[in-house]
Structures are given as C-alpha cells and as structure tokens.
C-alpha cells in the first residue's frame, strides 16, 4: 500500500485546483463588475449634480433643467403605494402565519409567490385597463396602485417569514393567560416581529422606488411639479428612461445624475437594512 507522502493522481490535483480557481474567479468577477457599475454611475452622475438640478423641472434642451418634479413624483407615488400596499401586505402576512396552515393559506402563498414573479409591465397593463381607460387619462393614482400591487405579495411573504420566527412559547404564554388570539397577535407577536417586518417593508419600498415599467403608461410622465393624484405624474425612473433613450447628450448626462440619486437612495436603504439586521449569516 502506498505511503502517505506519495502524491495522488496529478490529474485529480490539477482538476481540484482549476475548479477551485474557476469558482473564485466567478465570484470575484461579479463583485468587481458591481463595483465598476456603481463607480461608473458615481463618476458619470456626479458632474451633473447641482442644487438646481435637484429642484428644477425639465426644460427644453440647452436650457438646463432638472429632476425636481421627478423626485417628488416618485416620492408621492411610492408613498401612495406604501399606504395601500403595506397595510394589506402585512395583514395578509399575519393571516398566513397565524391562520394560514390550511389549503386556503397554501393557495394564497402559492399565488403570492407567482404574483411576485409576474413581470411588472403586466401589472402596468392591468392597471391601464382597470383605471386609466375608465378614467380617460393617466394618473398618479394609477401609478401608485400599480406599485402597490407589486408591493403587496412581497410584504406579505416577508411579514409571514418574520412572524414565523417568533417562538411559539411566546404565543402560548399569552394564550395561557387567557388573552384572545387577536390580542396575542397584535400585542405580543407583531411587536416581537416588528423589526423584521420593518425590514421587509423598507426593502419593498426600495424595490418599488426602482420600478419603471408599471409607471410607463399608468402615470406616464410630466414636465411639471404636480400634486394632484388624478393627473399624470413624473417619476425618477421614467425620467431616466426618457433621458437615456433620447438623442441629446445633455439629457444623457442628466440621466446619469438622476441614476446616481436613485441608486444611492436604494443602496443606502439596502445597506442600512442589511447591516442593522443580520440576515443570513
């Protein structure tokens, strides 16, 4: 029998090294790519940033202009989406975790997961047929509704997951004291899961902030500051899309700057949420 210091098949050793290197290369490659993309956005976007840019409305090419109304528009529609989507989503999530261990709950869970997977442009088309056509025009309301629909299943599932983490012993302790189920859920379980639910909520807000497709023909766009929900409203993402696909260089530069704002917001939310609440590891 061979001694322990005789080398094993060189081929096996080589294969081992090669595959280990390849996987490491994949990981490094993708990480570097991310950094390059973010870096590029930062560099390209920074030069066009200014206070004026952040507060002005779009102007004809050559006259400057800014994304002030787009920022406000995004904020309004995201807020609208959250006002509808968060309560419904959280309530659905509470149902799934506290009462949802039957066929109905399983169906809802399954449908929610597939709703999450439906392209957001389909949601946009849906709202178009449901709200825009009857109303006769695009509106911020339609845009907000579309975003809310995107939010609901995501929030529902993360809420459910977070509540499931609350140990049963906590529930049983309260029930044993004679508290009705609804009090237990509301006063004991929800507060315990609160930070997790908040995390899910924030991530879903970050997600809809970056959505473009559902707004394209529901909220359309606007060149003005607008605070009326029944009118079209500008949004950061649609504005980026328009500037990027237009023919003018100055607009391209503005697209980068707007992207910088958008990505910075989303990344900040994501990084904040993931460092404050240690997720997987």
């Amino acid at each position: 029998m061979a001694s322990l210091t005789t080398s094993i098949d060189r081929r096996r050793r080589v294969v081992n090294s090669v595959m280990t290197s390849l996987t490491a290369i994949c990981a490094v490659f993708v990480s570097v790519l991310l950094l390059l993309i973010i870096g590029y956005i930062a560099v390209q976007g920074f030069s066009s940033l200014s206070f004026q840019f952040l507060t002005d409305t779009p102007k004809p090419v050559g006259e400057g202009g800014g994304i002030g109304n787009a920022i406000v528009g995004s904020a309004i529609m995201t807020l609208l989406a959250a006002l509808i989507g968060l309560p419904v989503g959280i309530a659905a999530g509470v149902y799934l975790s506290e009462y949802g261990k039957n066929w109905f709950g399983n169906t809802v869970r399954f449908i929610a997961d597939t709703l999450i997977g439906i392209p957001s442009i389909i949601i946009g088309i849906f709202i178009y047929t449901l709200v825009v056509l009857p109303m006769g025009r695009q509106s911020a309301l339609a845009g907000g509704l579309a975003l809310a629909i995107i939010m609901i299943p995501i929030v529902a599932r993360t809420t459910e997951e977070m509540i499931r983490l609350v140990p049963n012993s906590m529930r049983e302790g309260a029930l044993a004291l004679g508290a009705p189920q609804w009090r237990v859920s509301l006063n004991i379980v929800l507060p315990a899961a609160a930070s997790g639910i908040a995390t899910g909520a924030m991530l879903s807000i970050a997600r809809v902030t970056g959505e473009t497709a559902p707004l394209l023909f529901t909220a359309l766009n606007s060149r003005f500051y607008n605070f009326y929900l029944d009118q079209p409203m500008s949004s950061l993402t649609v504005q980026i899309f328009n500037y990027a696909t237009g023919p003018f260089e100055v607009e391209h530069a503005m697209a980068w700057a707007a992207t910088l704002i958008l990505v910075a917001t989303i990344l900040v939310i994501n990084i904040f949420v993931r460092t404050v609440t240690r997720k997987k590891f």
Partner: protein
Amino acid sequence: MSDGRASSITQMQSKISISNLDFFYGKAQALFDINLEIPEREIIAFIGPSGCGKSTFLRTLNRMNDTIPIARVDGNVTIDGENIYAPGTDVVALRRKVGMVFQKSNPFPKSIFENVAYGIRINGIHQNKADMQERVEKALRDAALWAEVKDRLNTSAFGLSGGQQQRLCIARALAVQPEVILMDEPASALDPIATQKIEELVVELKKEYTIVIVTHNMQQASRVSDKTAFFMLGKLVEYNATQKMFQNPDEKLTEDYITGRFG
C-alpha cells in the same frame, strides 16, 4: 495512567500510535494528553459518556477534523510509523488508508453499484470495467450485503433498509482497500437485528482490517472488541483488554461507569 503508555517494542508493532495528543476547538480544549497504541488487526472500542471526546478523537485519526476551521491538533498521531499531521501529508491518501463509517448511514444519491464504485473511481484503482465489477462484488460480499442486492445493483441506494444502507456504507469504505476502518457508533440508529448483523460483520472484518469503533453501548463493546479505551471529559481514563476492562478494571472511575453509576 494505564496500559496505554507503550514500550518501544510495542510501538513498533502498533498500527496506530498516538502520543501526547491535545485537541482544541478554538480556545476550548476537548482532548487532553491522549496516549494510545492501536495494534494491527484488532478491534478497539472507545466508550464513555456523551461529550467525552471519543468521536472527536476518532476523527483525528483520519483528519476529518480538518473540515472544522477552528480545530487544532497538538501532538503526534503516527500510522505505520508516519506522522499524519506532518506538513505535506497527503490527506487524500491518508483517507484511503483509513476509512470511516458514520453514525447515520449516508449513501450517495446514486445506485447501489455506483455507491460502492465511487471510491474506486475517484482513486482510479480499477483497471477496466470487468475489474470494477469484481471489486464492487468483493466489497459487497465482504460487507455481507451481496446476496441481498446482487439482483438490484442499479437501483437507488435509498431503496435499502437502514441496516442495509449501513452495510452499503461499509462496502463503500471497503472498496478503496483501507487498512484501518474507523466506525463512529455505526449501529446506534439501527434496530437490534440489524445491529447484530453489523456486529457480526465487524468481527469478521477483523481478519483483514484494524478496526476502531466508537460506541455508547457497553454491551456492544464487550461483545465485539479486543481492547477498550474509556474516555471521560476529554481524558483517557483507562485502556485495557476488554475482558479485563469489564470484569476487573484498574480505575475506579471505569468501574463506576461500567456499573452504571453515572450516565
């Protein structure tokens, strides 16, 4: 402490020689100054209460603890005169020489044949297809499983019962022609009949292999082994011929454990 301290003559004859072995999980020490000689072609049983370190010690013999980042070994483990912790040791070759069977059977999601063939394949032991068939058959025979599976070699390993799966895992280990077989409570998850089959098999295997078996079942140790080592809290309390260990142990602690005075 016990018979474990070997004279130089005994050391020459030992298959495995452990001296001054300390083991650490990070800062916590799990094994304290273990000294033990394991002769060739005998069955050595490790017994002791839960958490006494017997499994940890077993795993130092084929360097399975390498997979744990915070694990650290001090001291010597020598197999056939070679220190297995020396830098540059080929761990892959070591594990071919020192095989392992685990507490819960863990066959691969492959057919029965492919499970046994796996070790042969990766180590490139076989010459050709016919040779492979022979080796697989021999391993299954040596594991007392051939008769039960010879007609369904290409079916999934998961179709076997728990006891059969464990014998399959033994066959898998035998297929790479080890010299030592380490068994970590191989029958603890099995019913009494399956357990008995495993025990009979182990006694048969002694003819060709050196076997170290960890068990929490003292009756099993007394039935099967030639020598027994009793561990407690990471220390080797006593190491003696099994007969002596169970009838007339040297240490009081050993006697207390064996008579069930503590768990």
